[in-house]
């Protein structure tokens, strides 16, 4: 189950998935993630790429105990809604964290991690996850 399609299907998202690039409306200034071609707030089609900081706070979280097929290897895993510094909310897994340590408002930062792999085909999907920031 879940054979990967063309590599292009995942590769075309490298800006969002590896670098967390969103879009900003040139008219009203609203920032979106994932990127959009039309601003739902003001209707403008003048959008530009914006580099997000990848820093944010946990708004809500859960522990996925019965994952969709393809994610069995990781279970159980924490999944969260993260409110980014720039405003948009993003859904992602938390990583490098003890599940009892997760709380509302916990600061997190984006890292690149393996999301899943496909047996036999060798394709490995990477993307963002979030972790408590490493203090300098």
């Amino acid at each position, binding site marked *: 189950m879940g054979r990967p399609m063309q590599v292009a299907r995942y590769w075309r998202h490298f800006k969002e998935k590896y670098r967390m690039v969103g879009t900003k409306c040139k008219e009203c200034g609203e920032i*979106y993630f*994932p990127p959009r071609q039309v601003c739902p707030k003001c209707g403008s089609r003048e959008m530009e790429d914006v580099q997000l900081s990848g820093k944010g706070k946990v708004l809500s979280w859960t522990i*996925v105990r019965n*994952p*969709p097929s393809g994610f069995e290897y990781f279970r159980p895993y924490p*999944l969260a809604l993260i409110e980014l510094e720039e405003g948009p909310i993003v*859904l992602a897994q938390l990583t490098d964290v003890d599940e009892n340590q997760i709380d509302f408002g916990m600061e997190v930062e984006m890292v690149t991690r393996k999301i899943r792999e496909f047996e036999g085909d060798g394709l490995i999907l990477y993307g963002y996850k979030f972790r408590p920031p490493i203090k300098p």
Partner: protein
Amino acid sequence: MRKAVIIGVGAVPVGEHWRTSLRDMAVEALLNAMEDAGVDRVDSLYVGNMASGSFIEQENLGALIADFAGLGNIPAVKIEAACASGGAAVQEGVKAVMSGLEDVVAVIGVEKMTDAWATDATRYLGYAADGEYELFHGASFVALNALVMRYYMKEYGYTEEDLAHFSVNAHANGAKNPYAMFKRPIKLETVLKSPYIADPIKLFDASPVCDGAAAVIITTEEKAREFVDKAKMVEVAGIGRAIDTINLANREDLLTLKAAKVAAERAYKMAGITVKDIDLFEIHDAFTIMAALSLEAIGAAEKGKGAQLAVEGQIAIDGDYPIQTLGGLKSRGHPVGATGVYQTIEAVWQLREEAPNQVPDPEVALTQNIGGTGSNITINILRRV
């Protein structure tokens, strides 16, 4: 415009139908509805179904079901709006009759989920979310709802026990419904002791994976008299449908089902009613949190007070806002694309006063069907003729 009137309903019990295929369940439900209505032919067929291509490798359900039900060369199509496919299909049938284009239409909702492995079923349901930004990151539907539930509990100070009242109510009512999957009452402890599937959602906060098929026959008020007595007629007096962001994270407010709010306003306006006129509510309790948010969105409770209605017992069959009168998604079951049509036939049974768990003397019923995490919602208002 012409009035759309439901004159016949039929279904198979919801459950795990290992011996029966999608086509046989669908034909059985459809023939039951046609027999109830006293019609032997229909002008067209609308099929509500979410994911037959994924679950059983079968699309083109319009042709499959109309063909095997012996309906001839009629127009027949599948309508898809995730878990709201059934509610949306009913609306397409209503629109066809009201517009004057078709006189007698059949609507069926059908889903065959148990032919898939459990983890694959979880994946297929996830296709209704934002595939590239939710499912890609390992989000199941339970998980997405869990994120909302935890936030709701924090914002308004509710406990897991408060929300568990929705499941207890659903099972108390479903115990009397011969078509329900789980025909037994449960206690609060049953919910609270059940294992977490995505914290804070426990097994008994969630509706089951199952199979089912339900059908209705819709025609004009004038034509209805040719087939049935007035006591069997139920008008679809108002319909409303709206979408919201496909991605939960992009919502204006995580705790408002805006699509339900907009759809309800449209349906109430069309039917010329307010929420106070409604005698029973079949809402989309795929998870207990969705029942709470739905009551708020349709105006039965203020924002943040949806769960309060459950705690106070106002959602019980003899309360001010009876919900899930025949079990809801939790107890009757949630064969996803069929659910909206099961809700419809349950509302019809109530309004005809032939329900096994009867609300006293009802005039108006509401059905609300949610697709995605609130991204596609239908509201229908049914009224006694």
